[in-house]
């Protein structure tokens, strides 16, 4: 069967004007904003050996990779589904000797194996920052504050942050709120879906207050406090409060103590970022563990933003004025005008028409005239 001309594989697309421009503008703004906090950019490759892409992070999964055999080396390569893992590799190899904490920034394309019905793109633009060697409350405050600042610069209004405690349920299941090991996977699934009915079926109603607490930050903390004191996680709530207090008032904060969606490798804290008018998540992050070659573990915290939902919601576009340069214009004057920010379209022949090039102005005898 022949492939229709122009058909792209599932989940891939061409970005056209003006979105292509908006995407690169947003990426640039984000990287610059992160860079101003002293995070230096690194740029790992699009594909790597499959094993090294998997190796560095705890609980990364093989089945999430788009893999192929390199015809040259005959070894399995994979396209990166996420840049965070590569940052971990850089931190434990080439930058292993640099003093900690290490502040690194990145931005580029990632490729998912599967598109979902809810997010049909397989190729996404990811940008973010990682603080390696420190996952303290102060580190989380720096990362989260930077995420908010960056989103504001990108033009996102009304930011919502959902704070989560990714390893809390697992810790409780092992200690103060025991659930037999064989039932734990089920428990996580039920809690992920906030399925109160499912909890009862698992005889795990002890976890119900955690489900019911999810909501606006202050109320959630209030509901959790008695349970936290009883089950020994009050210090975590205290840390969360310090983090909440560091965020500016305009940011809407919720707390969800059982959320684990996509936080499989996060440790004590995770967060999702939302923006009003944009469907779904626009970024996420949290603390995690990087594993060194000698099995030593190092703590880190970071955040990633996805540029595509921002572009799709219309951010990053700039209406610019286009100036038509007829034949015989002064090239030096045109260069000066471009330096002032004008976009110029130069006539290629006598019949060239400024209208088909969507020009807003025309240069006639050295003067700019609106069209």
């Amino acid at each position: 069967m022949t492939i229709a001309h122009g058909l792209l594989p599932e989940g891939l697309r061409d970005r056209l004007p003006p979105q292509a421009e908006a995407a690169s503008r947003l990426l640039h703004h984000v990287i610059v904003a992160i860079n101003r906090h002293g995070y230096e950019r690194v740029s790992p490759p699009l594909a790597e050996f499959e094993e090294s892409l998997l190796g560095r992070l705890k609980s990364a999964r093989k089945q999430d990779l788009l893999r192929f055999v390199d015809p040259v080396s005959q070894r399995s390569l994979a396209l990166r589904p996420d840049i965070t893992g590569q940052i971990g590799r850089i931190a434990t190899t080439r930058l292993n000797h640099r003093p900690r904490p290490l502040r690194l920034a990145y931005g580029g394309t990632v490729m998912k194996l599967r598109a979902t019905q809810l997010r049909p793109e397989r190729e996404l633009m990811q940008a973010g920052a990682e603080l390696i060697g420190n996952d303290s409350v102060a580190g989380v405050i720096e990362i989260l504050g930077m995420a908010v600042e960056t989103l504001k610069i990108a033009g996102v209004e009304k930011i919502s942050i959902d704070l989560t405690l990714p390893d809390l349920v697992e810790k409780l299941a092992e200690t103060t709120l025991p659930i037999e090991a064989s039932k734990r996977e089920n428990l996580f699934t039920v809690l992920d879906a906030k399925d109160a009915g499912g909890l009862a079926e698992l005889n795990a109603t002890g976890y119900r207050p955690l489900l019911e607490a999810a909501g606006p930050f202050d109320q959630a903390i209030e509901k959790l406090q008695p349970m936290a004191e009883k089950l020994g996680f009050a210090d975590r709530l205290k840390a969360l409060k310090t983090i909440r207090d560091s965020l500016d008032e305009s940011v809407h904060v919720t707390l969800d103590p059982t959320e684990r969606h996509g936080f499989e490798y996060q440790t004590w804290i995770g967060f999702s970022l939302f923006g009003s008018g944009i469907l779904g998540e626009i970024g996420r992050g949290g603390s995690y563990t990087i594993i060194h070659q000698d099995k030593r573990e190092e703590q880190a915290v970071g955040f990633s933003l996805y540029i595509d939902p921002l572009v799709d919601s219309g951010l990053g576009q700039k209406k610019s004025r286009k100036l038509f340069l007829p034949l015989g214009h002064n090239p030096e004057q045109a260069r000066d005008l471009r330096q002032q920010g004008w976009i110029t379209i130069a006539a290629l022949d006598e019949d060239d028409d400024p209208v088909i090039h969507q020009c807003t102005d025309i240069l006639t005898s050295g003067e700019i005239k609106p069209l």
Partner: protein
Amino acid sequence: MTKPLVFAIPKGRILKEALPMLEAAGIIPESAFLDKESRLLRFKTNRPDVEIIRVRAFDVATFVAHGAAQMGIVGSDVIEEFSYPELYAPVDLNIGHCRLSIAEPKRLAQDDDPREWSHVRVATKYPHLTHRHFEARGVQAECIKLNGAMEIAPALGLAGRIVDLVSSGRTLEENGLVEVERIMPISARLVVNRAAFKMRAGDIAPLVENFRRLVGVADNVA
């Protein structure tokens, strides 16, 4: 002004039981909602900030998962079939009880031992759920997706067995079928879109709380 919350209600089985519950939770639909002749799909309620849509049960899950509706009521069968990661089911409403079961013709059941199955051909509205269930049991299931009237599939030779909702078991019996295995108990759940649950927590959390309280009261009486 913020957009109104859209609440999705399924046509059919659950609707009758869901309505009183919705009213008790403080959402009373306009009268056109109850009018069977009405061709409207979107309805106002007593609250200016809440709208109702009436769609098929499977579509409730889809509307809510995509954030086109923020909340809804739907059976756990539908939730399990899609297993959308964006769908929360914070309250078991304790209505619309039934079970999802495997059934086969009486004749077949007489000398059939489900423990010996290695491959089955099943007609069902729930191909994913059915696959998952049989796979976990180590049985390969070939599912034929139907949208209704599963019960006639075995008699016409479309598939040997069916996976469907069973409440009293009367429909099965009338079609010469018997239940041979229960897959899971089903009840209706309040569902909420994940992103809306965070971003509009101020509007949604009190409603969820209302439903929770209603179910709690029902528990005490029972």
